[in-house]
């Protein structure tokens, strides 16, 4: 039992990171039915920005997270502007072009980081002393509390934003009926940009949290995390915000449980096995709308 509780704690911490990235996938998909595969790399840039701020400016934890979020927000806006917007404008570019462009943006960003930093893995300097607390037989570390806490805070903030602000309402309107939203005066391009910015900020925060948790930052860290977060978004129901959170946590739990079952060689395979299973059995995911209707 204590063993199980322990895996739950570990799974929640890991899953929170996937959930933060998955939110970006799902929000963009909800609005323009596009998978922005570059979120994994934006997450990686978030980790490096945090690392850079800590190493050169001796930034504390909060500054590292905020700084990384600010930088990845801008990065997300640039990626949208350069890699996606021109394709939306073009009559001849279909969904496949957008997907290829997305993958191109990912490769570009990870290669850019290799050029800037080199391919090596860098540890994250200790920002504060980690400690363990025992809770009903399971131990939870300060790092895990940090990850779960910051993620929960960001998710609640996002939920409130989408539910109660005028911009959040416009984003929901756009995802339900793009033409009708335009007739109400919603500027589609602006909303798409805001959505990219939010998703990128969340991925940036996830990058710093992951850097601290795993004590490892490297240019290709975004690939696996991004793909698993994508699997999480599909599992939860792509387009659904609560779905991304649930999917992220479940993927994190599945991975940890798999490792606990002495299948750690297969660690990275669980997410994809789940992805394939969901696509076969229930493509709309756990909380997704059953009809995915997009123009």
């Amino acid at each position, binding site marked *: 039992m204590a063993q199980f509780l322990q895996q739950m704690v570990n799974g929640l911490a890991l899953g929170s990171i996937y959930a933060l990235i998955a939110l970006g996938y799902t929000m963009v998909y909800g609005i323009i039915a596009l998978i922005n595969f570059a979120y994994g790399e934006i997450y990686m840039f978030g980790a490096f920005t945090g690392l850079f701020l800590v190493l050169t400016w001796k930034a504390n934890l909060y500054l590292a997270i905020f700084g990384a979020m600010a930088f990845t927000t801008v990065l997300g806006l640039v990626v949208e502007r350069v890699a996606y917007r021109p394709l939306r404008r073009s009559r001849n570019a279909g969904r496949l072009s957008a997907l290829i462009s997305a993958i191109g943006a990912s490769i570009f960003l990870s290669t850019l980081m290799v050029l800037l930093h080199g391919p090596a893995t860098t540890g994250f300097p200790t920002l504060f002393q980690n400690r363990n607390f025992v809770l009903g037989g399971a131990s939870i570390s300060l790092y895990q509390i940090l990850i779960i806490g910051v993620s929960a805070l960001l998710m609640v903030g996002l939920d409130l934003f989408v539910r109660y602000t005028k911009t959040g309402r416009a984003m929901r309107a756009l995802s339900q009926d793009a033409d*009708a939203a335009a007739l109400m*005066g919603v500027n589609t391009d602006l909303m798409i940009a805001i959505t990219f910015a939010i998703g990128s900020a969340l991925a940036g925060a996830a990058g710093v949290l992951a850097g601290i948790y795993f004590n490892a930052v490297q240019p290709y860290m975004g690939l696996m995390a991004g793909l698993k977060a994508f699997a999480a978004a599909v599992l939860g129901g792509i387009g659904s915000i609560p779905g991304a959170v649930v999917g992220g946590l479940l993927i994190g739990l599945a991975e940890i449980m798999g490792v606990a079952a002495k299948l750690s060689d297969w660690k990275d395979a669980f997410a994809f096995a789940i992805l394939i299973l969901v696509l076969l059995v229930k493509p709309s995911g756990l909380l997704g709308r059953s009809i995915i209707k997009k123009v």
Partner: protein
Amino acid sequence: MLVIKDLQVSYGAITALHGISLEVREGEIVALIGANGAGKSTTLRTISGLVRPALRTSRITFRGETLFGHDANGKYRAALPHRLVEMGISHVPEGRRIFPAMTVRENLLMGAYSRRDRRLSEAFERVYVRFPRLKERAGQVAGTLSGGEQQMLAMGRALMSRPRLMLMDEPSMGLAPMLVEEIFSIIDEINADGTTVLLVEQNAQMALSVADRAYVLETGHIALSGAAEELARDESVRKAYLGE
């Protein structure tokens, strides 16, 4: 108020409008009638910027401002759909197109999206007076409303921006006869309150009964136009559209 000159619109190889011209004057209800596929919705969707004219010589102006086409300085203009509601054009689209997962109240708030002033309670009040059902159902998810209620919501939503010109695309579609009567009397009231209306309908009889003037659209051409009363008496119109 709204002037359309030589509007031509295509969807790929299909030409939906072959150069139509029409005019809506301030205070009028103008009906645009015609069979399914004649190009009625395309006309409204082009005015709203959702579809672009095929020719740069096509011209649409609203209150003297060029929405599409060359302006007085010879510069080509094409308005973006989200700017039109700010200029005072509100479009109630075919099939209602309410936001199904939002509440009635949120749908109405979306209707007021373009408004910068804070006097929304007044706008809500006006819509609720006109559509008391919407007030009762304010908290209900719009997708669960009946067809008639959804039509009222779509109209209420369009009124929230306090438009000068309302474009209505087949408001009677799929509604029971009693509701059709109700919807048309509301259109009359909206117009009496000072909103100009361009009304698209397949139900020619009802449309001609509320309209001041009308245009008959046939496969992308204006076949006839004139005072609504006269058209309602016209032999060919009676045969083709009034089921006689």
